[in-house]
């Protein structure tokens, strides 16, 4: 009798949820299947969704307002990073120096690298800069397609005029030796 009870429990345990939309294999559980709780009030969910939309709009306006106040267009400098799709190396970190002063650094996670390889562009730095000649230095660390770690430094002398300046660092891979190459694009 006892064993039969065990086996009936076993048969429920073997029931595994199918059609999972994510890769996390869900734990099969007796309780999960049996318990059907009354869900959250749909009116409340609708209200929450409406509020979310309003707050996205408000956040967007607030970011724009902050940008306009702190980094006006005539002094604005933006530094961006992109990667070519076919590059096989993995970015570990990046450091950006402006006139030999560290202004930002970033450590990369897998999803961010995938996003960059997929055409995404990361805004690394946004700041204000006086007109005139300046020096931008980017130091990039990572692992190459040949499994070797690399460290590359790229310097750029540029002139900031009386308008916003955008600098895009493009990371590519050398077709001959699989080594990373850096191209700088000024906007």
């Amino acid at each position, binding site marked *: 009798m006892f064993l039969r009870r065990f086996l009936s429990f076993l048969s429920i345990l073997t029931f595994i949820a199918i059609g999972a939309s994510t890769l996390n294999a869900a734990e099969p559980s007796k309780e999960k299947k049996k318990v059907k709780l009354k869900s959250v009030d749909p009116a409340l969910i609708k209200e929450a969704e409406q509020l*979310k*939309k309003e*707050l996205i709009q408000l*956040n*967007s306006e607030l970011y724009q307002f902050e940008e306009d106040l702190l980094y006006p267009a005539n002094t604005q400098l933006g530094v961006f990073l992109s990667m070519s799709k076919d590059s096989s190396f993995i970015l570990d970190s990046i450091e950006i120096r402006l006139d030999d002063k560290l202004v930002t650094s970033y450590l990369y996670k897998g999803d961010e690298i995938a996003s960059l390889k997929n055409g995404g562009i990361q805004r690394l730095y946004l700041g204000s800069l006086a007109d005139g000649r300046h020096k931008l230095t980017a130091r990039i660390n990572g692992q190459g397609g040949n499994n070797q770690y690399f460290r590359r430094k790229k310097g750029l002398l540029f002139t900031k005029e009386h308008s916003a300046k955008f600098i895009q660092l493009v990371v590519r891979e050398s077709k001959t030796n699989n080594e990373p190459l850096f191209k700088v694009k000024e906007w």
Partner: protein
Amino acid sequence: MNNFVRCSPTINYLKTFLFMVCLILSPLSHSMPKSLYEGMVQFELDRGNHFKALTLMNKTYQDANHVDYVTALYGFNIKSDVDEVLKKIYQQQKNKSATLTTKDYFKIGRLEYQLGRCKPALRAFKQLKNKLSQEEKQEWIFYRSNCFIRLGSNIKAMQVLNDTVDGIWASHAYYNLGVSYDESSRNKSKALKAFKLAILLNKGKTLQEKALKNQINLSVGSLYLNAEKPDLSSNFFKKVYLDSLIAPQALYLNGLAKLELNDFRAATQSWFSVKKYPLVNQSVAEALLAIPYAYERSGYISQALEAYLEASNSFETELKVISKVDSLLKKYGASKILLEDNNIEGLEWFLAKDVVTNTMKATYFSYFMSNFEIYDAVELYSELKMLSDSMQFWSSQLKVFSQSLKDKQSTFNKKSKSFSLVKTQKKIDKITNRINSIQNKNSLTQRQIDRLQITKMEANTSKLSKRLVELKGKVAQGQDQLKSQLKMNTELNKRRKTSQKQLKAVLAQLDKQITRLIRDQLGVLKKQMATNFERSEQGLVHVFQDIAESSKKQNVDDNNFVSYVYTGRINLR
């Protein structure tokens, strides 16, 4: 400041002049190149930061990129607008007014799949044949095969999987197919074949791969156990990692397999190792009840009695904990007890956080989150909490901006008051006159005029006159801009306050509903635990009855033994 005072009045005027020019020339709207902007949105979208992506997307982007917009909306759980945007996309597709890229079709297919609509998902995926990279193809095959499983066609799912693929997506797809075969067919060989392929395709290196491998091993083991092949099943249960979430199930079932093989010692060993896991997991409870059963079958009656007592005590203790957690939830609400970091006096035993994951709070939290209704509600709560935190951040930022703008305005007023346009013009005129008078002196040779840079000075004064005329208009404009920025600051702050108030109210309501859901779930656990307790008590009675009956038959006076056991039980309690 001292340097400034020591400067000549002309330099002071020029400094003020330049300050005002700088201030006025700051335009308040600017734009970055389109490709950079779109790349930024893509970056956030691809890495799953849907809130940031939505914040970056302006109306023009939303209208031009409906697919990105709907993906972000779904990602941030704003599902009410999803169907409407999808409808627009399909309408545009029908009218041929917009061209969809390979990426777009993929996103639509994935979205429809996630919404549980397999037919439109398959229609979108159909557009992608031979247009995908090897990596994308894996995901594509996973969704398509799963869609066919959902639509009830395992054969078509198998056909989809026949394309040569490998990796985690394929492993997951074969696993799902195996489960489907296991449920739908009496012949388990197809299910077994699918599971084995799933294992072969799984490298077991990443956390996801390991979790899936554990799940597959558990399923194969269970399948063999159901097919009355306990020896084979045990091999698979043993492969489940002890640190995985399903380890208690695997250990418990491994014990069952050993029991089937009449290896009571190995069965109890396996069940004993389940005891270290939290009792809220029903497998642990079953293992606690299985141990005395195995002892009883082996003829170790006193050990069986002790094991029943231990189980009974554990269930009783857990019932007390459940009641305590329930009363805490009732008093403080789910947000304070489970969702936020709190230090409530006297509740350290429950709220304590540690580097280990088996704390009391973590155990109950994991148990509650295994219910999808609770999980979704808590996800919504955390999203709203994140928005509330962002509003809190903007509250302090706007305060700083307001003060800074007021200071700027006051400096601007002071500077503009101290700066007289008429006086400056007079000074420029005076300088011009002096330059002219020098130039008109007949005694000066051309060489001397060049050395004194008279022509340059003339040009500079002329430029200054022109800029002064421009400045006149811009001074008024600058004041207006500062005023409008301050007004904007006030308006945004007002909206922030209103939104924050609304958020607070919604969060409070949601907290109440989550508390209700969790307490309902806790009620189920309490019932389960009470049943477990009753089963252990019945087990005890059953053992006593057996002892009494056998003693009666053998005509042995066992009264002393029974009283000894009862006394033992009282002492143990």
